[in-house]
């Protein structure tokens, strides 16, 4: 059963039939996806399935060749990235942080859309969630361990107090122990109206997913609940390649 | 199949160009202008060899030209060499400079260009230094009136042009040319195709240097009186690069078209009002980069036409 296709009142992000291409190379074919308020969506897919391109298209980092992106009812498709971020989207890339800058600066830059007072208050809230970052606030981000860097990436992305946090492979380059820590952090962040859209290969993230989308060769191959997915071979095909 | 392309290019482009430039002096009296046309036709192809096929843009290309001019002059003045032998010295001087500067090829794009520009300015500073007056005549310039022979010099310039055009035609039709383009496109894949990247790049670099060196030598011979600033003038590099880019590099025809159009325009308006020409020229370069970065021939190539 596909999820509801029309924008329900609690829909935050609605993607209708977007397509993207690099030159003559088409990467996405009519991709539909919705994220509700406070909902957590995990987007699964193998390397090269188009996950990163899709996320970048949502942020306006890749130009779409067709389709519409709505956020809280507003059409974002023609807006620049910074304008989309001001509307309440946040993106955590695989790189996630500015390595050369300090932790404090990373968070301040993440909060660039807020006024100075709110930005400071927001930083304090984030330090409360990630105490390790407060300890090392003056150190360069490059001095952090891989897991701490992801925490900083999350803090940076949350600094502007977004409604939707879009993440590209938060598990990339992390050992299983840190992956569990990231999953736990995200699990704690859920609710409070924050929506999450997480592109992943690591199945650990299924634990916190409300719904799953699977990208296969630039097309949505499956959309539904985790329980439905377990009976479907789409996951097996997309992720493990097992038949 | 590949060599048929070489024959076709030779027959339909190289032979007609040489023939026209050979006949023109008998019907048009401004021989210096025609000579300069031959010089720029050759230099633009020299730039084409390097930039069009390997992606290195020689911003200080004139260094080889000047080295050739001085190699020729020093051979004539100090070794009393006959002009044809002195031309060999011109090539040798440019080749030696090329070898000396070969380490610059390790630099990537923009840094190579800037370093090459600095190198050409350094050579100018050295040659025009008063301390070297005994060898180079320093800043006071060279006079070669003893070997003055514009007719023979013009003929030699044509021969150099013909050789250069044939070399470019060869690059366009040979595996070696493909290998150079492969290096330009991707260094790692090129070495995984079995290409000795360092060696191939070096050959293109030296060929490019020799073309300018011989041309510089024949230029010295033709004008016979010149100053360091004459043969190291930045406009030689700039004109050669812009002509080649304007027409379209990695083709045989592009640089020729670029020289005919732009150097033609230069001689219509540039000689009488140089600063206005510089202005137009500057705008033209900017427009080229912003709107037609692959040159005139790319307009045809976009329509699927194979430009020789």
């Amino acid at each position, binding site marked *: 059963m596909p999820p509801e296709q029309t924008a329900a009142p609690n829909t935050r992000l609605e993607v209708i039939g977007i397509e993207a291409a690099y030159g003559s190379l088409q990467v996405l074919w009519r991709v539909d996806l919705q994220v509700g308020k406070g909902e957590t969506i995990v987007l699964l897919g193998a390397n090269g399935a188009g996950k990163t391109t899709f996320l970048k298209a949502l942020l306006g980092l890749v130009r779409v060749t067709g389709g519409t992106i709505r956020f809280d009812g507003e059409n974002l498709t023609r807006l620049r990235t*910074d304008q989309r971020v001001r509307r309440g989207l946040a993106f955590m890339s695989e790189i996630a942080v500015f390595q050369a*800058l300090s932790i404090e600066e990373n968070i301040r830059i993440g909060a660039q859309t807020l006024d100075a007072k709110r930005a400071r208050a927001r930083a304090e809230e984030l330090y409360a969630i990630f105490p390790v970052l407060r300890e090392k606030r003056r150190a360069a981000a490059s001095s952090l361990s891989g897991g701490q860097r992801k925490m900083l990436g999350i803090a940076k992305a949350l600094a502007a107090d977004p409604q939707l946090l879009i993440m590209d492979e938060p598990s990339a380059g992390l050992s299983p122990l840190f992956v569990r820590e990231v999953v736990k952090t995200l699990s704690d962040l859920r609710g409070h109206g924050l929506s999450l859209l997480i592109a992943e290969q690591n199945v650990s993230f299924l634990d916190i997913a409300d719904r799953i989308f699977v990208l296969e060769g630039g097309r949505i191959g499956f959309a539904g609940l985790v329980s439905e997915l377990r009976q479907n071979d789409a996951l097996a095909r997309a992720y493990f390649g097992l038949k | 199949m590949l060599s048929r392309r070489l024959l076709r290019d030779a027959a339909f482009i190289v032979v007609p160009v040489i023939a026209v430039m050979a006949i023109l002096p008998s019907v048009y009296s401004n021989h210096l202008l025609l000579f300069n046309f031959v010089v720029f036709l050759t230099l633009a192809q020299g730039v084409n060899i390097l930039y069009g096929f390997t992606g290195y843009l020689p911003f200080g290309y004139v260094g080889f030209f000047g080295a050739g001019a001085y190699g020729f002059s020093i051979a004539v003045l100090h070794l009393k060499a006959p002009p044809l032998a002195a031309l060999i010295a011109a090539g040798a001087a440019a080749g030696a400079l090329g070898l000396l500067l070969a380490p610059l090829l*390790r630099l990537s794009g923009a840094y190579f260009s800037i370093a090459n520009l600095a190198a050409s300015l350094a050579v100018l500073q050295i040659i025009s230094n008063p301390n070297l007056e005994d060898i180079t005549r320093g800043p006071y310039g060279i006079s070669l009136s003893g070997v003055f022979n514009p007719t023979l010099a013009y003929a030699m310039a044509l021969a150099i042009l013909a050789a250069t055009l044939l070399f470019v035609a060869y690059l366009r039709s040979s595996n070696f040319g493909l290998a150079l383009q492969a290096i330009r496109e991707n260094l790692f894949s090129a070495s995984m195709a079995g290409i000795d990247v360092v060696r191939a790049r070096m050959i293109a670099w030296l060929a490019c240097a020799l073309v300018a060196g011989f041309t510089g030598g024949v230029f010295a011979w033709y004008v016979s009186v010149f100053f360091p600033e004459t043969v190291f003038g930045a406009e030689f590099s700039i004109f050669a690069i812009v002509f080649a880019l304007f027409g379209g590099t990695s083709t045989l025809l592009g640089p020729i078209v670029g020289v005919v159009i732009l150097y033609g325009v230069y001689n219509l308006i540039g000689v009488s009002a140089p600063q206005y020409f510089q202005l137009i020229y500057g705008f033209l370069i900017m427009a080229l980069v912003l709107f037609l970065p692959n040159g005139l021939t790319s307009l045809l190539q976009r329509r699927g036409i194979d430009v020789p």
Partner: protein
Amino acid sequence: MLIYTLFAGILFGLYFSLVGLGLNLVFGVMRIVNLAHGDFLMLGAYLAFWLYTLSEVNPVAVIPLAFVLFVLIGLPLYYILVPRLLAAKDPEMLSIILFFGLSQVIEAVAGIVFGRSERSIPGGELGRALAGFVNLFPGANMESGPVEILGQTFPAAWVVAGIASLLAVLCVYLYLYRTRLGALTRAVMADREEALSTGIDTHRVSAIAFAIGIALAAIGGVFAPFMLGSITPAMGVEATVTSFAVIVIGSLGNPLGTVLGGIIYGVSYMLMQSYLSSWANLLPYLLLIAILLVRPSGLLGRQVRLA
């Protein structure tokens, strides 16, 4: 003699830092080479020259005017040229050609407007400014003229240029490290793609950096008549190559590395002038090539080599 040379080298070094600073800021933020950098310096020099000749404006007073004027020129120029350039396949390479074209345009216009002859401003003007400033303090009584430091006498112009350059570098430091826009600028320098992902309006940040870069060149130009000799419309190329040498010695893309590069350059320049003067003009070129080949990332780091 040696002390004199070293101290003069540091004064020149500070000035060369200012000359290269804008080029490095533009490179650091946009990864493009502004080959017209020296031509903006030339324009700044002519601005100072004409204001002095027409209404005896002291060159020091021209500095704020040059800054504002060239920021205002730089902003639209950025939006005309750079976004299109950055979208191309190889912006770094194409930038050289594009800005070379711009350099030709500026040089041609300057030649048409100002004429080709060499111009200069009397060196005493900066001394007057220095004395005037020092005498603002109660009890100070300074003659305008050469300045004596460590028992050596230096032209006042050098001292003023050195101090002004130091102040300019300091202002850039404060901008980058103490302001919000500066932090965003460093974010773009650190990783343009990540900056875009974070929602920074990278074009706005870059446009401001570009305009500041050009304005710094123009301020450097105000002192050019005293530090680089007489001014001509064609002086831009040499100034660009010098700037490039300075920033390559320091570190490409790291504006504060420029100070190190400038001082090394200035001191070696003065040493050459004192002990090997006929070869001094070779210095920028040889230093540039040597550093690129031996330590291509500059003394403070960034990879520019292929294989």
